[in-house]
């Protein structure tokens, strides 16, 4: 410890503290000429004054130092999460990047371990959300993010990101080393444009595209790195610690709007500019702006104000289109650039192939206008000049010439203006559509990352702009399916204070800070059922008696009130005496009321008249909570302390003190049998205690913040609600052993209070802002599950959507009532796995095919087998197919051939000769005249139905597996091992577009007409990645993704004719159906977020269109299902609920004759 400065040193210091360096030096030279220690002291103080900065001892915010010094790198072989460190790859602003081995799946990854020191928990949470969002970007041109998480390293959670490790060279190095020609170089950038466009469509802007961020791997695929991770433009987000050196490396690739610091102007076109620089550099081997030797401000000015050197000055070959394209990307005015990376990429490709480029037309016009503008500049700048005189003369001349000529020129002008206007409106329309698409996609990503609030904000505001847009409707359906939120509404305008549900689980009661009104809501529909106005005081806590007939409130002024919940009348108001009451409970017999006060006492009142019976001092601090065991024998009491107290509920004598939590206890609940007490704490854990002995039983770690509410359900499971999630804990081995934590509802929003319905079907969270979300905690009202059976192998739905057929690995066919999931009948249809199940269109038959080589037809009116063939080859779910009129059935056969037969007579219509490759799939065109067939030769083929003669054939990049025709027969959708679903033109079979999204085999497709002109056709695909996706094939966009059985392959998908119900079968033995119309109608129950929180551009007035839309959606009648022969009642009447042994070679029932389809 040093002594204080001398009086003289202090005075000198104060004199000099505001002075500049020179003045300080001069004065010190003079004053301390012969006093070196004095000088040293003053200089040291001045240095520390300057070094302290404004935030040292800032009185507004004290931030405790997180860790000493720098973070140290992890040693090789050490572990973090499921990763083993192999070595260090590099060090960035956010942390250190390691080469690491992931355990499952086993692969080498790049592991970015984030510096903890500077990031607050809420910041890290946002960061993780962002990383999770980026993880959903799946494109061959983007380095994949595998996982973002936190590993508990013992020093608190350590955030990390695992991503694809790319071995390759930077784009420029690659071009140089391989000696690529300009076409190859341009082609690389076009591929990068595709990747960037993929991200842009999902609302993600890179902001830092440069050659060192684009690596080309061995196979020549460019990969964009560092997409958005560790970067965010808002001030409170993680700051990128960019050193000056790094900035200099980045500056040449920054757009003028970035250089100018106009962060509000940064959008997708910023990335287009950077891509332009990359392309320029790749072609010219130099940068568009020579910034070497310039100071930062000079360099910035140059980027903002100067046009780059023309590309053709370095290489004459690049004159013309290439130069035009590059210049358009490098326009300083972003509205003059390519508006999307896709447009840029398309023009690059046109350059390569020599097609006319898009940029040309308007750029000529622009050059003209640009010159005119320069001209005007000259005129203004130079005053009277030769040029101005020339213009003036020309003007006079034109005026003096004939009127006819003038009219002609005006017409030309007008025509040109019209073209320009059209171009501008067209560009605007396109830009708006892009923006909408990008916002919706970003909203969907937010929802998948668990940030419901951000998702709602984005998607609902887009919905307000265009309530008829099918994209937003599907995005909302997806959002609310993933987040099982049944209703969302605002209950109070102030922060929530307390919430509870009545014992019957039908009513939610909420109270807010500084709000005298307590509100009652029905569960789960969230309709206001009543309110009580308590006057002016603030309500601190509420409690219900056991039957739920009386509501007790305690107020900040210390008063307690009891209200009748049926009549909404006050029973009495009483004074608890000392101080503000913080907690309240009825005794289980309903005779007394206990109020915990701020003065550390518990006051006992009569629950009938409020008379004060007794008072008891607990301690010096607030009594925050009181809860009785159901039999009233024990009372749990908690205060702002780490300990909990367990009392005798009758004598109110202390029995046990519960020690173990590391932070304050916020909640407690007794198990239904009263033997276990659960306590939740700010230490993010739930602890279980033996009520008899007070001994700790186990500890459940909730990763999502303070556990503020606990609730036991009748099945013995425990619900815990933290700031960010609702967790469900399943019964555990009482002494030790981990409990199972289930399906948590994740929220980015901080939950203030949580209430859960009586039997635990619904829970309601009340956020700090007063918004209530009602969550479905178990089951799913719009989703039907079809239980029973072993691993499922196929599913089908009858055209009317009333009957669902599911087959399994054992060959058992089960028929269910679609809506309720009731099992109607079970038939042992095959001896072995059955992958093909289909209802006959317009008929009453069901076809099944199995690996036992049988193709069988079943009569759904009698349940009997009507026909079978022993020559079926069942490899895929589309190994067989009914013709659209139901009269024919096509099949794949052993010996690798295709067959077409008549359903009524069984007669063969056509057959192919045995082929070299295995037959996989057959599918009829809508007119029945053509078949799409697939063999194991990586091709898709069209054949004539009558002869099976090959019409056309197209080779794909991987083995196709299933096909679907569009209802008008002009397109063929093909899915398979190529992950993407291809849209092929019929009959040329040229690939028109790819639907990108799945990342594993897509074994099944289904499509249906919707009648909505904006989305006439709904295409569904199921994939081994576990997702069922809905597509708009025209735009190539995915409308929604459902994960009926997360982690399990989605083997099969089918839809009914009205497009109301979608069925999917999964490898885990589950088959589910989704009521799609109910999903869309369900959105109407979710009132959009508050208008003031919407994105700029949506006025609150537009909110009314949402409500109109919602009310219309609710009124909308159900689509009338078509009537067909598949009647659940008839099938139930068969009385075959238990399948016998799967049939052998012989049919279970004698084949009956059938009369036509």
């Amino acid at each position: 410890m040093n002594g204080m400065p001398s009086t003289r040193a202090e005075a000198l210091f104060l004199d000099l503290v505001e002075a500049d360096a020179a003045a300080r030096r001069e004065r010190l030279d003079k004053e301390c000429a012969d006093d070196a220690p004095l000088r040293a002291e003053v200089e040291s103080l001045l240095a520390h004054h300057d070094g302290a900065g404004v935030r040292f001892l800032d009185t507004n915010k004290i931030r405790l130092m997180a860790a000493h010094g720098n973070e140290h790198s992890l040693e090789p072989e050490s572990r973090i999460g499921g990763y083993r460190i192999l070595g260090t790859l590099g060090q960035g602003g956010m942390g250190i990047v390691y080469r690491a081995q992931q355990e499952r799946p086993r692969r080498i990854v790049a592991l970015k371990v984030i510096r903890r020191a500077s990031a607050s928990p809420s910041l890290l949470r946002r960061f993780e959300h962002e990383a999770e969002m980026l993880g959903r970007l799946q494109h061959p041109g983007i380095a994949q993010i595998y996982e973002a998480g936190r590993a508990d390293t013992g020093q608190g959670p350590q955030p990390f990101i695992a991503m694809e490790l790319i071995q390759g060279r930077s784009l420029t190095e690659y071009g140089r080393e391989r000696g690529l020609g300009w076409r190859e170089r341009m082609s690389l950038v076009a591929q990068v444009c595709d990747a960037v466009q993929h991200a842009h469509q999902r609302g993600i802007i890179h902001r830092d595209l440069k050659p060192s961020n684009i690596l080309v791997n061995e196979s020549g695929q460019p990969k964009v790195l560092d997409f958005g991770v560790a970067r965010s433009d808002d001030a409170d987000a993680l700051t990128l610690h960019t050193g000056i050196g790094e900035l200099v490396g980045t500056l040449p690739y920054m757009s003028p709007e970035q250089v100018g610091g106009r962060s509000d102007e940064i959008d997708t076109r910023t990335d287009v500019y950077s891509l332009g620089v990359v392309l320029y550099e790749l072609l010219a081997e130099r940068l568009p702006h020579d910034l070497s030797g310039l100071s930062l401000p000079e360099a910035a000015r140059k980027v903002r104000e100067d046009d780059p050197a023309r590309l053709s000055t370095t290489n004459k070959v690049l004159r013309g289109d290439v130069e035009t394209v590059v210049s358009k990307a490098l326009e300083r005015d972003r509205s003059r650039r390519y508006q999307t990376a896709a447009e840029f990429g398309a023009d690059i490709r046109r350059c390569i192939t020599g097609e006319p480029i898009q940029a040309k037309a308007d750029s000529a016009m622009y050059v003209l206008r640009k010159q005119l503008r320069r001209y005007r500049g000259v005129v203004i700048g130079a005053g009277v000049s030769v040029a101005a005189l020339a213009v003036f003369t020309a003007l006079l001349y034109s005026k003096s010439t004939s009127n006819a000529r003038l009219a002609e020129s005006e017409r030309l002008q007008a025509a040109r203006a019209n073209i320009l206007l059209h171009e501008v409106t067209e560009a605007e329309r396109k830009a708006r559509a892009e923006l909408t698409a990008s916002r919706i996609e970003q909203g969907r990503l937010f929802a998948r990352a668990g940030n419901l609030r951000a998702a709602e904000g984005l998607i609902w505001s887009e919905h307000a702009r265009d309530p008829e847009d099918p994209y937003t409707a599907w995005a909302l359906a997806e959002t609310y399916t993933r987040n099982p939120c049944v209703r969302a509404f605002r209950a109070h305008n102030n922060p929530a204070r307390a919430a509870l549900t009545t014992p019957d689980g039908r009513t939610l009661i909420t109270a807010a800070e500084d709000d005298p009104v307590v509100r009652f809501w029905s569960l789960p529909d969230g309709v206001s059922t009543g309110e009580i106005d308590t006057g002016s005081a603030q309500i601190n806590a509420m409690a219900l008696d056991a039957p739920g007939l009386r509501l007790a409130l305690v107020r900040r002024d210390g008063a307690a009130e009891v209200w009748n919940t049926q009549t909404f009348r006050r029973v009495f108001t009483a004074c608890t005496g000392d101080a503000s009451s913080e907690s309240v409970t009825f005794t289980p017999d309903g005779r007394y009321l206990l109020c915990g006060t701020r003065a550390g006492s518990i006051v006992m009142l009569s629950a009938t008249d409020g008379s004060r019976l007794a008072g008891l001092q607990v301690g010096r601090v607030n009594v925050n909570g009181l809860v009785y065991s159901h039999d009233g024998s024990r009372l749990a009491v908690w205060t702002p302390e780490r300990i909990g107290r367990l009392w005798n509920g009758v004598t109110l004598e202390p029995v046990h003190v519960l020690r173990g939590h590391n932070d304050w206890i916020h909640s407690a609940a007794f198990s239904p049998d009263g033997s276990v007490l659960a306590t939740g704490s700010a230490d993010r854990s739930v602890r279980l205690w033996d009520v008899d002995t007070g001994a700790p039983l186990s500890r459940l770690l909730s990763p999502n913040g303070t556990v503020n509410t606990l609730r036991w359900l009748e099945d013995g499971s425990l619900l815990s609600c933290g700031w960010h999630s609702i967790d469900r804990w399943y019964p555990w081995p009482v002494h030790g052993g981990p409990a199972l934590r289930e399906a948590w509802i994740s929220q980015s929003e901080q939950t203030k209070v949580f209430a859960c319905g009586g039997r635990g079907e619904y829970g309601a969270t009340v956020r700090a802002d007063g918004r209530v979300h009602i969550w479905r905690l178990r089951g799913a009202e719009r989703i039907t599950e079809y239980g029973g059976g072993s691993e499922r192998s196929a599913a089908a739905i009858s055209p009317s959507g009333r009957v669902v057929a599911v087959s399994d690995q054992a060959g058992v066919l089960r028929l269910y009532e679609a809506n309720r999931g009731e099992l109607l009948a079970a038939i042992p249809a095959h001896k072995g796995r059955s992958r093909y199940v289909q209802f006959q269109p317009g008929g009453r038959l069901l076809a099944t095919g199995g690996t036992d080589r049988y193709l069988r037809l079943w009569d759904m009116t009698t349940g009997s087998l009507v026909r079978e063939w022993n020559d079926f080859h069942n490899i895929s779910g589309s190994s067989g197919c009914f013709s659209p009129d139901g009269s024919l059935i096509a099949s794949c056969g052993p010996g690798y051939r295709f067959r077409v037969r008549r359903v009524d007579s069984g007669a063969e219509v056509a057959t192919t000769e045995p082929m070299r490759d295995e037959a996989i799939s057959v599918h009829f065109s809508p007119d029945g005249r053509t078949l799409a067939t697939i063999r194991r030769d990586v091709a898709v083929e069209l054949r004539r139905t009558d002869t099976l003669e090959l019409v056309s054939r197209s080779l794909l990049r991987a083995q196709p597996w299933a096909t679907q025709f569009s209802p008008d027969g002009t397109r063929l959708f093909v899915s398979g091992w190529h992950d993407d679903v291809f849209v092929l033109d019929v009959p040329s079979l040229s690939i028109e577009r790819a639907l990108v999204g799945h990342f594993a085999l897509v074994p099944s497709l289904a499509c249906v007409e919707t009648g909505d002109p904006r989305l006439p056709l709904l295409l569904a695909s199921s994939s081994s990645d576990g997702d069922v996706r809905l597509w708009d094939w025209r735009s190539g966009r995915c409308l929604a993704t459902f994960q009926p059985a997360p982690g399990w392959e989605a083997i099969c998908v089918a839809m009914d004719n009205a497009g109301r119900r979608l069925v999917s079968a999964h490898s885990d033995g589950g088959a589910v159906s989704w009521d799609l119309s109910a999903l869309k109608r369900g959105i109407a129950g979710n009132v959009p977020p508050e208008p003031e929180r919407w994105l700029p551009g949506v006025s609150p007035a537009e909110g009314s269109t949402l409500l109109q839309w919602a009310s219309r959606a609710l009124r909308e009648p159900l689509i009338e299902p078509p009537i067909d022969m598949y009647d659940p009642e008839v099938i139930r009447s068969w009385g075959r609920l238990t399948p016998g042994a799967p049939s052998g070679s012989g049919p279970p029932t004698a084949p009956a004759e059938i009369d036509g389809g």
Partner: protein
Amino acid sequence: MAQNPTEQVTLLLSRIAAGEAHAAANLLPLVYDELRNLAAARMAKEQPGLTLEPTALVHEAYIRLIGAEGGRADQKWDGRAHFFGAAAIAMRRILVERARRAASLKRGGHMSRVELADEPANATVAPDEVDMVALDRVMEGLKAQDARKHEVVMLRYFAGLTIEETSLALDLSPATVKNEWTIARAWLHRELAREGSGV
């Protein structure tokens, strides 16, 4: 406990004003409890975070304990000065407790790689991060050598008072408070830097 904390605090402040010296000793626990509760509520909101806003907390505690009317200009400042003096001590105690706990959690972990011995020799005080435990030590040194500067820092930093408020509370001129604050800040910064380098 006859009254609620608000009444107790008001009563204590008037007793202090009337010259009852021992009343000041009774004030601290009340203010400490209130601040601790408020701080905990804030912490819970931000998850168990590390950021606190002493100014806001102290003022909220003041309003909760004394009421908004107590803040009016026509009220005597004496009472308020005592309140804020107690608040500063309480706040400092809370901050140091938090920091100690955070540090002990950090060192207790089995995967800890942040060894004290490994720290770089040139560790300095980060601009917005203060090692509260070190500051607490250094403040004790300041108190021993220059009680007035110590008082100024307590009120300015831990109770979040402005220069003017501090000058009223300590009965000093604003210029003096500003000078003392400037010197103390530079001095504290120097001492903390030394602590950091192990000197």
